[in-house]
């Protein structure tokens, strides 16, 4: 049986054989539904590490870990380090035990954001339907772009992957399928520099032997509940009547019964507007005292405020996030009287929430976020009684101006001067 196929290096037809008849490359992609599928998930390979290796050729052949110091966690490990078993979110000491020769770099978010934006812009040249999931991955819907690009979505994507390698200097993996659920799975199958296709016809059989937690949205808790009810693999879900799953788990059950067969009708939604702006950091050493916690919190509040001001937005709800040494997550929120973008206001609310949580518990992570967003014009309205808002606005405006001119270090709040905390991992 001859399925449609092409060479990912020279893009010429390659309906059969192990190597491209034109250029001899073994990087062929062949699939029965290759010419009809149009939803893709594109994921940059070991993104942070790839950007660093691009910028420093001496790093190319050594294991590279991007993350915090001794105490932080791994945010990205390059593929060489992954061979030794290093994984994202792994505590740094464990990663270094597995791979002592690794080079560790602190993340340089500004650099990654620039590269991420570059990749995003290239995606948007393929289709307006780009749904970013994070800085380095997105869903693309290329339906109806065949005439525009003069090629099937599959070939357009292969050409795009080549272009990213050439122009940005990093590699991506592409998953092509009929819907978002399968595309996301597909992009993970052939990493790095991969291109894999998961057709609707093979989906059910492909999914059947996998554990239920393979399904997006089924975590440890829900997975445990499913296992208790006798659903261990996706095949178990395929055998169950949809009505039965619906009765047991409500709407979620119905969703499961469809996903088990690889059916997913969610559309690729471009322009996901930011719902919140947040910053967080993991400490070098666990902390329990208010002073160091509030210092870090202040620095994070300034960061969130900066990003809000730059985006021209403000928010009304302030959320404090704490993770204790035993990995228990605490989030506490407060709704303000009026939306704000001021660091002092964000910090004020978050600090009040923090004070109530300081009870001797040791924390490993602290974060602050602002949600319930609105345009900056509606933020921090003048108050009849409290004239501090106007003063704060003027003061922060002046600080921002000085920093813009002389650099971030030009001006520092007193609260940060005796700060011993360091901030490694940012989000």
């Amino acid at each position, binding site marked *: 049986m001859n399925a449609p196929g092409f060479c990912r290096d020279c893009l010429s037809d390659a309906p059969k054989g192990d190597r491209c008849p034109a250029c001899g490359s073994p990087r062929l992609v062949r699939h029965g539904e290759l010419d009809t599928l149009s939803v893709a998930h594109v994921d940059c390979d070991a993104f942070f590490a790839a950007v660093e290796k691009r910028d420093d050729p001496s790093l190319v052949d050594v294991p590279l870990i991007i993350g915090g110091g001794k105490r932080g966690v791994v945010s990205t490990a390059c593929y060489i380090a992954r061979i030794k078993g290093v994984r994202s979110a792994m505590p740094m000491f464990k990663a270094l035990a597995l791979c002592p020769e690794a080079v560790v770099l602190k993340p340089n978010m500004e650099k990654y954001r620039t590269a991420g934006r570059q990749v995003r812009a290239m995606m948007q040249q393929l289709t307006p339907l780009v749904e970013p999931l994070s800085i380095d991955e997105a869903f693309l819907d290329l339906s109806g772009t065949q005439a525009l690009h003069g090629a099937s979505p599959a070939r357009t994507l292969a050409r795009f992957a080549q272009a990213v390698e050439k122009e940005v200097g990093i590699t991506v993996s592409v998953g092509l399928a009929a819907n978002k659920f399968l595309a996301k799975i597909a992009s993970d199958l052939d990493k790095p520099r991969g291109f894999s296709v998961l057709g609707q016809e093979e989906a059910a059989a492909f999914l059947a032997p996998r554990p239920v937690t393979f399904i997006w949205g089924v975590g440890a808790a829900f997975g445990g509940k499913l296992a208790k009810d006798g659903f261990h693999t996706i095949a178990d879900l395929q055998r169950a009547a949809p009505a039965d799953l619906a009765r047991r788990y409500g709407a979620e059950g119905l969703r499961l019964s469809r996903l088990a067969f690889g059916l997913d009708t969610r559309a690729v939604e471009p322009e996901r507007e930011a719902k919140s702006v947040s910053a967080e950091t993991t400490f070098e050493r666990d902390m329990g005292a208010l002073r160091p916690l509030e210092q870090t919190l202040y620095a994070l509040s300034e960061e969130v405020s900066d990003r809000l001001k730059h985006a021209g937005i403000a928010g009304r709800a302030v959320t404090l996030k704490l993770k204790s040494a035993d990995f228990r997550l605490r989030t506490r929120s407060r709704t303000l*009287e009026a939306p704000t973008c001021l660091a002092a206001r964000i910090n004020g609310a978050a600090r009040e929430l923090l004070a109530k949580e300081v009870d001797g518990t040791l924390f490993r992570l602290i974060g602050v976020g602002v949600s319930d967003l609105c345009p900056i014009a509606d933020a921090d*309205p*003048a108050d*009849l*009684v409290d004239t501090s808002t106007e003063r704060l606005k003027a003061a922060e405006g002046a600080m921002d101006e000085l920093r813009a001119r002389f650099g971030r270090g030009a001006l520092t709040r007193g609260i940060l001067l005796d700060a011993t905390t360091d901030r490694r991992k940012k989000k």
Partner: protein
Amino acid sequence: MKVTVERAELLKSLSHVHRVVERRNTIPILANVLIKAGKNGLELKATDLDLEVVEIVPAETGQAGATTVPAHVLYDIVRKLPEGAQVQLEAGGERGTLTVKASRARFSLQTLPEADFPDLAAGEFSHTFKVKGADFRRLVDKTQFAISTEETRYYLNGIYLHVTEGAGGKSMLRAVATDGHRLAQAELEAPAGAAGLPGVIVPRKTVAEIQKLLEDKEAEATVSLSTTKIRVQVGSIVLTSKLIDGTFPDYGRVIPQGNDKTLIVDKDEFAAAVDRVSTVSSERGRAVKLSLAEGKMTLSVTNPDSGSATEELEVDYTAEPLDIGFNSRYLLDITSQLEGDTAELKLADPGSPTLVRDSTRTDALYVLMPMRV
């Protein structure tokens, strides 16, 4: 305890006291109403520890005594009893229950001991004055809408009541409330006994209860104050409440004195126009823009999500043209408090507080913070 009381009397009184009782209570006895039968009649008392209402209703006491029962349940029972029924309350029988009997219906309610019922020790009041119910009600009505609900500024969560020298040099009893966006001030000539009154902040819930007590316009209210408590007595009802322990801001400097642009507008026309154009405004941004030019005001609202609206009004305005934005809801709140036919707005610039009042009265005024438009 054994007492017989007319349903209508009992219902009216329970409707006063049961409102004080919070729907959710962590302390069980606070969900109860204290009922006490004596030779003066039947006394009902409810409290939330900050506010207490006591009322005595005429009743025929067979045997004096007291107990407490769930307030909302008793209120609901009495409400559903047939009109004109005689209600018999009897306690002291077995298992600490209160029996409620009326015509052929019979209820048995769990009680909690009277001795556990908290008492809001009123202490001494330093000042007492009598005021016409309608007058006192007016002070409260005119300012109540501006009370803040913001918990961090708890000292704005009530009406600031104090005696001050008014514009005419007379001693005035003045009420002020503000939430930072708007401020309302109403006053009346200080009644005898009010001189030297300490400035006090009456909490929002108490304000609402006082409004209910003063529904009868002919009633006379006796108001007693100390630095920590207020007591309002109307007929056989006595309301006692704690005050907010805080300092009300120096509101005097908020009231603009030098605003030189005067706008006179027909109050009802203005309110109707604001209401109409704000139909297209979003839930979040309630701003309405007033564009003032000689003899003319153009109201406009632009909502990128739904559309826009404009309306023109003939007004009395001769100062230089000005564009200024206000929250439409706040404008409507204020115009609905004005008593005369025309409203007077004193404006300075688009960023400064604006003064609003009746063009013919001086005993109430409002200040409104503009919005950016």
